[in-house]
C-alpha cells in the first residue's frame, strides 16, 4: 500500500527522471522498507521517505538550483522547505515532551473545544451535506398544501388533490406520496406474532425516489389501489432479523392481520425512508371509487413529493402547480375554496425545523473554540516569556527571526493537530451518545457519520486554531529584542524583553551594542555551525562592523 503511495508521489516528478530512476528508486525504497519492523518504525520510515520524495520531486520541478558551487560547496541556505518543516516538527515534539504539563493542558483544552465542534458539525453535516439515498436527489421536491384559514403553511395533502396534480402538472415527471406516520403491524412468523413498523406508500413511491430493490422488485403505480395491493416490500434489516436472510424470500407469503400479502422485494441495506423505524412498505390500498368522495379531498395525511421533469426548474414547476390549484379551487369549492399549494426542494423541506437550532448550536461551539484558543494563547505567551533566552540564543547562533517565528508556529500547529485528533475522538463519542437517544440527521435518510466532511472540518478547525493561538507568540518572537534578552538572560533572569530601559538602550542608545545574527536560515544542524562559518558581529552604533573571535564567555544553557 505504502509503495503505491510512493509511486504516486514519484509521478509528481518530471517524466525523464521517472523513466531513468523511478524503478531504481522504488527498489531502494522496497529494500529499506522491508527492514523496518514494528508498526511505529514503519510509519516513521514512511513519513520520512514521503517527505524526502516530496522534496525531491519539487526540486526536480523547480530546478536543482545553484545552491552548490562547482566544488559541491553549499552556497545557499541549504535545507529545502520540506526539510526545514520536518526539522521544525521534530524540534517542536522535543520541546513539548520537555514540558508535558503544558502540552497536556493545552491539548486537553483544545480537544474539548474542537470536540464540541466536531459533534455539532456531525449533526450539521447529516442534515445539510450528507447525500440523500435517492438518485438525482436535487431534482426531488416536496409538495405541500396551504390554508390561511387554518394557518397551514406546509400541510400534508389530501389524496384526491395529489392525484389531480399528478395528472395535470406536466413539470413533474412523477408525483408520489407516503403517510407521514408509520404504523405498527402484527405479522405472523412461524406461528408467533411479531410487531413490525410499516409505512403506507403510493405505488410509485420507489420509482419517483429513483431507488431499486436489492432483491425482487418495488411497487408499480397500479398497486396503489385496493384489489392489487396484496404486496409488501421489506427492509434489509427485517429480511436479516426476521427471515434469516432467506435467499428465496421473494414470492413468499407473509401473514399479517388477517391478510396474506406477497413479499415482492427487499430494499438495499440502509434504506429506510421515510422513517428510521420503517421495516416494511405496503401500498396505500385506496378504493378507486373514493376518488370522487368528498372526504378523499378533505382529509390531509399524505406527504407528497415529486421529481422535476428534466427540462424544468422549481419556479416553472411552481407556476404550473398554481394553475392547477386555481382550477381545483373552482372545481371543488366545498373543500378547496381557500386551499393553496407550494413546492420546495426536498432536502430543504426535510431540514427546515432543525436549521435554526443547529446554526445557533454551531455558533456557540465556535465561540467555545475561540475561548479555548484564547486560553491556549495565554499559556503560550506565559511560556514564551520563559523561553526568551532559548530564543535569543537561537537568534545568536544564526537562526533568522522568521525562522524562529516559524518554529513557534510549528509548535502551535503541532499542539492544534494533537488537540484535533483527540477532539475528533471526543466529538465522535459525544455524537454517538447524543445520537443514541435523539434522532439526528434527516429521519429515514441520513445518519450521523464520521465522514470525510467531518474530518476535514475538524482538521480545518484545528488548523485555524493553531494559527490563531500561535500567532501571538510568533509575532512576539519577530518583534522581540534579541540583544536585551541575551544580556538579561546571562544575568539569570528569564523575563527580559519587557524591560523598557534595556529596550531603549539597545535600540538606539549611547554605548549600546548589538549582536547581529550571522547568515540566517539553514537547518538546525547547520545553525549550530553558523558561528564557524560567519561569525556574529558586534557593531557599535554608527561604527564599522568588525568580526570578533567568538563569544567572550560561554553562553550557558538554553
Amino acid at each position: 500500500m505504502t509503495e503505491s503511495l510512493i509511486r504516486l508521489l514519484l509521478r509528481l516528478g518530471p517524466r525523464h527522471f521517472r523513466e531513468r530512476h523511478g524503478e531504481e528508486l522504488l527498489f531502494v525504497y522496497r529494500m529499506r522498507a522491508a527492514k523496518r519492523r514494528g508498526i511505529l518504525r514503519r510509519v516513521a520510515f514512511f513519513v520520512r521517505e514521503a517527505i524526502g520524495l516530496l522534496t525531491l520531486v519539487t526540486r526536480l520541478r523547480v530546478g536543482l538550483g545553484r545552491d552548490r558551487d562547482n566544488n559541491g560547496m553549499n552556497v545557499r541556505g541549504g535545507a529545502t522547505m520540506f526539510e526545514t518543516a520536518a526539522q521544525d516538527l521534530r524540534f517542536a515534539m522535543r520541546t513539548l515532551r520537555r514540558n508535558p504539563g503544558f502540552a497536556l493542558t493545552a491539548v486537553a483544552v483544545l480537544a474539548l473545544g474542537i470536540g464540541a465542534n466536531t459533534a455539532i458539525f456531525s449533526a450539521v453535516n447529516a442534515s445539510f451535506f450528507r447525500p440523500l439515498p435517492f438518485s438525482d436527489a436535487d431534482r426531488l421536491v416536496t409538495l405541500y398544501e396551504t390554508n390561511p384559514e387554518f394557518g397551514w403553511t406546509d400541510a400534508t395533502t389530501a389524496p384526491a388533490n395529489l392525484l389531480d396534480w399528478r395528472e395535470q402538472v406536466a413539470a413533474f415527471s412523477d408525483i408520489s406520496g407516503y403517510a407521514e406516520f408509520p404504523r405498527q403491524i402484527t405479522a405472523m412468523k412461524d406461528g408467533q406474532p411479531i410487531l413490525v413498523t410499516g409505512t403506507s406508500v403510493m405505488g410509485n413511491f420507489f420509482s419517483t425516489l429513483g431507488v431499486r430493490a436489492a432483491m425482487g422488485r418495488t411497487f408499480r403505480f397500479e398497486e396503489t389501489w385496493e384489489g392489487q395491493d396484496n404486496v409488501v416490500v421489506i427492509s434489509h434489516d427485517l429480511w436479516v432479523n426476521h427471515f434469516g436472510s432467506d435467499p428465496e424470500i421473494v414470492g413468499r407469503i407473509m401473514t399479517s392481520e388477517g391478510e396474506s400479502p406477497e413479499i415482492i422485494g427487499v430494499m438495499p441495506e440502509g434504506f429506510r425512508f421515510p422513517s428510521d423505524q420503517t421495516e416494511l412498505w405496503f401500498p396505500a390500498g385506496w378504493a378507486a371509487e373514493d376518488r370522487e368522495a368528498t372526504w378523499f379531498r378533505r382529509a390531509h395525511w399524505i406527504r407528497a413529493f415529486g421529481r422535476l421533469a428534466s427540462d424544468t426548474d422549481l419556479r416553472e414547476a411552481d407556476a404550473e402547480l398554481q394553475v392547477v390549484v386555481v382550477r381545483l379551487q373552482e372545481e371543488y369549492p366545498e373543500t378547496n375554496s381557500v386551499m393553496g399549494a407550494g413546492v420546495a426542494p426536498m432536502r430543504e423541506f426535510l431540514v427546515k425545523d432543525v436549521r435554526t437550532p443547529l446554526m445557533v448550536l454551531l455558533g456557540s461551539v465556535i465561540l467555545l473554540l475561540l475561548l479555548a484558543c484564547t486560553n491556549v494563547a495565554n499559556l503560550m505567551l506565559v511560556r514564551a516569556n520563559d523561553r526568551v533566552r532559548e530564543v535569543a540564543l537561537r537568534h545568536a547562533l544564526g537562526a533568522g527571526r522568521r525562522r524562529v517565528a516559524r518554529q513557534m508556529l510549528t509548535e502551535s500547529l503541532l499542539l492544534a493537530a494533537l488537540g484535533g485528533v483527540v477532539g475528533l475522538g471526543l466529538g465522535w463519542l459525544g455524537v454517538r451518545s447524543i445520537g443514541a437517544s435523539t434522532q439526528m440527521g434527516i429521519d429515514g435518510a441520513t445518519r450521523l457519520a464520521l465522514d470525510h466532511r467531518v474530518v476535514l472540518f475538524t482538521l480545518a478547525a484545528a488548523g485555524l486554531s493553531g494559527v490563531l493561538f500561535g500567532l501571538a507568540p510568533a509575532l512576539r518572537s519577530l518583534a522581540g529584542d534579541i540583544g536585551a534578552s541575551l544580556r538579561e538572560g546571562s544575568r539569570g533572569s528569564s523575563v527580559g524583553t519587557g524591560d523598557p530601559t534595556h529596550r531603549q538602550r539597545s535600540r538606539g542608545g549611547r554605548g549600546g551594542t548589538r549582536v547581529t545574527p550571522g547568515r540566517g536560515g539553514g537547518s538546525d544542524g547547520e545553525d549550530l555551525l553558523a558561528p564557524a562559518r560567519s561569525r556574529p558581529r558586534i557593531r557599535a552604533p554608527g561604527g564599522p562592523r568588525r568580526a570578533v573571535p567568538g563569544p567572550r564567555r560561554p553562553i550557558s544553557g538554553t
Partner: protein
Amino acid sequence: MAGMTPLTFQILLALADGDRHGYGIIKEIEARAGTSAAPSTGALYLALQRMEAELLIAETDERPPDADDARRRYYRISESGRAAARTESTRLAALVATARDKELLVEGTP
C-alpha cells in the same frame, strides 16, 4: 569557509573505494554511520542528481567484478569529486585538530 553538506560527503566517501548503485550507497552509509544517519531515499536521489550535475560523480556502464545486481545503475566518483572529498577531509581534520588543542576532544572517544 563553507563546508560540503554531510550527505554529499557521505556519498563521496561511499564511492571512494569502488562503484556502487543507489541501494549500495545507502547500505554503505548505514553500515558506517548507523541506520538513522542514512538519508531518505528521496534525499539520496536528489543528492545524486545534484552531484552528477556538478560532475562530482558520474554514472558508469562498467560493472564491478563483485556486482550484486548488474541491472542497477552504478555511480563512480570523478576526479573533481575525489578532490572535493579530499578538501573537505582536510577541512574537517583541521577543525578536529583545533578541537583537540582546546581540549574539547578527549583521546579515545569516537
